[in-house]
């Protein structure tokens, strides 16, 4: 052998391996030792090439496991790669320096301490954990950590951080899923209609089984078909091919996730051809899980895709022609075939079976493998016993045994129907083919190839063409004559009805993922879980990483027989997305999380503001280091009370309500009345929902007969706007509502000196108390910027809210700060504003109200119009007026200066019962005492009533109810 031959492993075959590039050697490590492979190898193929057959440890018994499918449909090859757990070694391609480790073992991979579980396995029947460990409450406390420690497969790296994943939308007229013969034919045919065709295949090379399966002795049939079909696809100009791309689901209206590399595609197609093929099914016999025992198709993949010899001496268990094809494959690479064991009593004479006979290979017809043998460590199969089939699932005593290092299972298939089932297709078990077959497929979806029960190559291609044609037509393409059908005599000979052979000593695995043996299912049924779904939940069959791809059909067969039900009436358990596991990173993608910033955002940062989220906005909480929070807030409050300060109020909701019915509209949306509100004036607005619950508030400013500018809460405005539009879609009033929140930046300049500061910037508005009184609104310019000015009193001092177009916001801020220098103007944040408004007794909707607060509880009857015929929530509010009031929002203070300030949501207790809670409380800088608002029992709502507040540590303190507002009750300061 040449040096190059030697590289890449002793089991490497010459002149084979469609996917590997022998000119590109690659070295990686497995469990610490270096492994040589070629570019294009998967981890598993490279390991097999180097004689490392054990790739993982099983979930429960920690048995050695090796290659089963070589296409990632099983969980036998799960490995850990750096911070990626549970990675499929038979799908993941190797790369230089890749560090691969085994999973789920204790101590060392080769001698795993976890194996002890199997030694005691007979004491651990199906669902054993339901049956014990609960003698006392403490029993489970003792055992659970032990059971829990055994759970799981791969490991998390706590310090990992997710990499760069992103997403992209795709669009196509026809999407073809699966690049095997059916998919190729479908794509080529669909393309004839001229639409956009997208062909998606999970493998690096198109062709599917044509790349490894054998349809005749010479192998020419596959090559010929491959060539023709590929050329047709290449020839079409309108087929986009996505290889190495996995479709993981099929959702409503043909919405398809496609995973390729670190990108997650979301495809919308007008029509879809599902040509996902079928999943070869294992046989169930004692020790059928040993490394060296694999599906026939897995061996063919190793040979033809990776140039790896799966074994030197093989026993083939079959029930169809494919087993004979595999025998020929093995002979051609110089491996011995000890025997072919055929479950069928008299296998049909086919070209392939004759060829096998000519090669002098004994065929045990009507026989099965009774058990597979191993050495102590169970790390590889070393031989099998063969016994005649005596009846369904019954064997006579073994008549022969063979030494071998390879056992192939080729006893039948099950359609890879997951995508179709997810989309609502109905499949039913055919007693002719012994497979589930499509009965009902939703419009716009078409199935072709073995997923649709087609196996004969000509029939598969024809099925593909017909599906491609139908899909193109459904997608609105102009199609020619419908391609002809080809019937298939062969399908009935593909799958054996009962490749399940229990053994007196057990060890016949039905579910490799979950280490479930034949008896576990039988016993589960005997325990009363005799429905497929119940048995799944009780025994966990099909719940492992491969989601029952190899166990679901066997489970249904067993349930049907044990309960005497008709298989045709049963279905496999619900197939849920994803078809193959999707990474969190794929689903998350680039995390899009929009945020809104005011025009002055960066000014706040420059001034050292601590920002806080308000809805999706950012607002300054206070200015200064976190450590000096209290001090900063107090100074900001004092600045407003004594001098002048400014706050960014841009996030406040703003709605322009315009038109002949503007006033009538507000009358209906809010509790107050606005018809008679004078132009140039503003008035409080309170909104309730249909149930009379307070939902928002603000002020309405009337700039003209037909124009109101209405403010709303920062986080409420979008909902307010939306509900206004929905109501007027029903009322049809002549009014236009526009959400102009972002369009206007806002600054509230507040404090006794605010007028003199503003005067420097505002020439065209007379700011005098007489000309521009409290609650007045004006339009003019500030610092040369067109502005809306509002005299509102939220903080209780002389103040002006200035609203200017967003683009001018930063310039306005700069101008006000500049103009206020002589007065030492400073910015204040949301925290100070909360203190100021609390001193004035103004509520904050959603802090001082909750999801059920009505106007009576909030003590705001003054905001309810008496004379209006209607407002949203009006009737409910009237109804609640007749009912006993259960709580009332009041102001309170603490008379004992030694008492600590209660926290928001500390409870108000009366006679041991919870009657309310503190909604806001602060140690008021302006008043030098604790003031707050709380819900109290209505009996205690009168001023000077005493209330009991339960603060930290369960301590009860006494508060006294006082009339609101706390600060400047006559409102002289804000009306200056």
């Amino acid at each position, binding site marked *: 052998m040449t040096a190059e031959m030697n590289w890449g492993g002793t089991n490497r075959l010459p002149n084979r391996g469609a996917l590997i590039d022998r000119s590109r050697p690659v070295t990686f490590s497995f469990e610490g030792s270096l492994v040589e492979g070629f570019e294009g190898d998967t981890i598993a193929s490279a390991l097999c090439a180097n004689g490392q057959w054990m790739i993982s440890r099983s979930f429960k018994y920690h048995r050695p496991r090796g290659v089963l499918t070589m296409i990632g449909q099983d969980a036998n090859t799960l490995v850990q790669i750096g911070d990626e757990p549970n990675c499929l070694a038979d799908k993941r391609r190797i790369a230089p320096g890749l560090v691969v480790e085994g999973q789920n073992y204790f101590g060392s991979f080769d001698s795993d301490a976890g194996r002890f579980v199997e030694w005691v396995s007979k004491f651990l029947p199906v669902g054993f954990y339901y049956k014990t460990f609960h003698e006392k409450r403490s029993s489970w406390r003792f055992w659970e950590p032990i059971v829990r420690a055994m759970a799981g497969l791969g490991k998390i790296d706590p310090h990992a951080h997710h990499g760069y994943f992103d997403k*992209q939308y795709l669009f196509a007229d026809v999407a073809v899923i699966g690049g095997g013969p059916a998919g190729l034919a479908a794509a080529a045919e669909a393309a004839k209609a001229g639409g956009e065709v997208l062909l998606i295949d999970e493998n690096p090379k198109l062709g599917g089984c044509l790349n490894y399966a054998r349809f005749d002795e010479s192998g020419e049939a596959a090559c010929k078909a491959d060539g023709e079909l590929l050329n047709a696809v290449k020839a079409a100009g309108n087929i986009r091919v996505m290889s190495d791309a996995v479709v993981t689901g099929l959702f409503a209206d043909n919405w398809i996730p496609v995973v390729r590399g670190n990108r997650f595609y979301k495809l919308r197609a007008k029509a879809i051809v599902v040509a996902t093929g079928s999943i070869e099914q294992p046989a169930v016999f004692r020790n059928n899980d040993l490394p060296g025992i694999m599906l026939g198709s897995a061996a063919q993949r190793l040979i033809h895709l990776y140039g790896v010899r799966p074994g030197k001496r093989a026993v083939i268990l079959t029930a169809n022609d494919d087993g004979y094809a595999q025998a020929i494959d093995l002979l051609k690479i110089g491996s011995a075939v000890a025997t072919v064991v055929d479950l069928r009593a008299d296998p049909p004479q086919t070209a392939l079976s004759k060829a096998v006979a000519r090669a002098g290979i004994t065929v045990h017809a009507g026989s099965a493998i009774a058990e597979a043998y191993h050495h102590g460590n169970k790390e590889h199969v070393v031989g099998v016993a063969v016994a005649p089939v005596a009846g369904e699932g019954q064997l006579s005593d073994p008549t022969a045994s063979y030494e071998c290092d390879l056992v192939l299972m080729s006893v039948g298939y099950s359609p890879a129907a997951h995508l179709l089932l997810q989309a609502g297709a109905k499949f039913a078990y055919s007693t002719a083919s012994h497979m589930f077959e499509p009965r009902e497929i939703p419009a716009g979806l078409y199935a072709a190839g073995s997923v649709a029960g087609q196996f004969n190559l000509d029939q598969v291609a024809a099925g593909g063409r017909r599906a491609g044609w139908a899909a193109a037509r459904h997608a609105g393409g102009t199609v020619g004559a419908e391609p002809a059908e080809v019937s298939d005599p062969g399908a009935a000979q593909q799958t054996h009805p009962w490749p399940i052979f229990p053994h007196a000593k057990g060890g016949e695995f039905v579910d490799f993922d979950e280490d479930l043996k034949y008896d576990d299912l039988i016993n589960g049924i005997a325990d009363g879980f005799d429905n497929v779904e119940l048995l799944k939940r009780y025994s966990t069959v099909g719940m492992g990483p491969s989601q029952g791809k190899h166990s679901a059909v066997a489970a249904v067969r067993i349930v049907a027989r044990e309960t005497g039900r008709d298989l045709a009436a049963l279905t496999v358990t619900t197939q849920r997305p994803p078809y193959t596991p999707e990474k969190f990173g794929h689903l998350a993608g680039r995390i899009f999380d*929009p945020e809104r910033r*005011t025009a002055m955002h960066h000014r706040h940062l420059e001034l050292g503001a601590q920002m806080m989220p308000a809805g999706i*906005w950012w607002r300054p909480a206070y200015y200064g280091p976190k450590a000096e929070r209290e001090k900063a807030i107090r100074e900001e409050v004092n600045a407003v009370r004594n001098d002048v300060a400014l706050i960014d109020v841009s996030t406040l909701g703003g709605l*322009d309500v*315009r038109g002949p019915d503007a006033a009538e509209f507000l009358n209906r949306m809010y509790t107050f009345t606005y018809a008679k509100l004078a132009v140039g004036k503003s008035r409080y607005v309170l909104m309730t929902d249909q149930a009379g619950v307070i939902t928002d508030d603000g002020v309405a400013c009337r700039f003209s007969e*037909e*124009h109101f500018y209405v403010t709303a809460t920062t986080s409420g405005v979008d909902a307010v706007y939306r509900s206004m539009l929905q109501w007027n879609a029903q009322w049809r009033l002549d009014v236009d509502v526009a959400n*102009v929140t972002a369009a206007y930046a806002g600054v509230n300049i507040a404090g006794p000196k605010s007028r003199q500061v503003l005067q420097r910037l505002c020439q065209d508005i007379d700011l005098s108390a007489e000309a521009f009184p409290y609650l007045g609104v004006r339009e003019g310019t500030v610092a040369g910027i067109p502005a809306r000015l509002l005299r509102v009193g939220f903080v209780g001092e002389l103040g002006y809210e200035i609203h200017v177009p967003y683009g001018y916001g930063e310039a306005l801020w700069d101008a006000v700060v500049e103009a206020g220098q002589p007065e030492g103007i400073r910015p204040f944040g949301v925290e100070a504003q909360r203190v100021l408004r609390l001193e004035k007794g103004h509520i904050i909707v959603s802090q001082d109200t909750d999801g059920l607060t009505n106007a009576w509880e909030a003590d705001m009857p003054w905001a309810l119009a008496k004379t209006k015929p209607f407002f949203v929530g009006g009737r409910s509010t009237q109804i609640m007026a007749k009912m006993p009031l259960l709580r009332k929002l009041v102001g309170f203070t603490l008379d004992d200066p030694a008492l600590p300030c209660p926290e928001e949501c500390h409870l108000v207790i009366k006679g041991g019962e919870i009657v309310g809670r503190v909604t806001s409380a602060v140690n008021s800088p302006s008043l030098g005492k604790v003031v707050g608002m709380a819900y109290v029992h209505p009996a205690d709502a009168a001023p000077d009533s005493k209330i009991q507040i339960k603060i930290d540590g369960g301590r009860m303190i006494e508060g006294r109810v006082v009339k609101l507002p706390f600060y400047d009750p006559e409102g002289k300061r804000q009306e200056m």
Partner: protein
Amino acid sequence: MALPKVFAHNQLRRSPIYRETQKAGAFPEVVNGGAVPMHYGSVESDTLVGARMGIADLSVLPHTGFKGAGTIEWLQGQGLSIGPDSNMAFRQEGGELAARLAPSEIFLIDSLAATGALIQKLNGAWGWGTEKPRKLIGYPMPRQDSHAWFMVTGSAAPEMFAKICGVDLRPHKFKLGQIAQTSLAKMSGIVIRGDLGQVPAYHLLADIASAEYLWGAVLDAMGEFNGRPVGLAALRQLAEG
């Protein structure tokens, strides 16, 4: 190496992302009372980039809107040509685009010449009537300040959009002048196809308060196409073809 002479923070009107374009090395000029990036070092290289994958900040360029009963009639009375279809943008004589967002709503963006002539005229012309009952002529909308205005250009633009937008914007599916009011990188926005000569190009109008977020999201999506910010001058070059 020349340095910018105009600075955005010296203007009254400021683009919501002027800091970003400044960081990217923009050379601005004053347009419509604000600073608009004309190029990022060289108009030529901007133009080359723009033909492949570029994004321009036009937020300070004149744009406005009108909506409500009577809007279309009034605008037509003012000489605008507006077709019957919603979600189509109609080119005016001066190159402005009248984007019909709804049966009675127009979003008007200026041409790249950015004279502002038509928009000033309309803003000036609109007023509450004194007649009784008042004739309904719609209402002005503060679009200049509710929406940031970016232009995304280049052959890679459609594929870039496919990373942030679920609507198929590829030229053979999204015709010239067509409008998509949709979700972009999880925020609402308006996309108008307005090719520059042979180069695919899209106006992108979105919430001005989220402009920095969107600018960042688009630049991130442009990365694999080696896209970068380009100036208004390059757009004009491409438009001339």
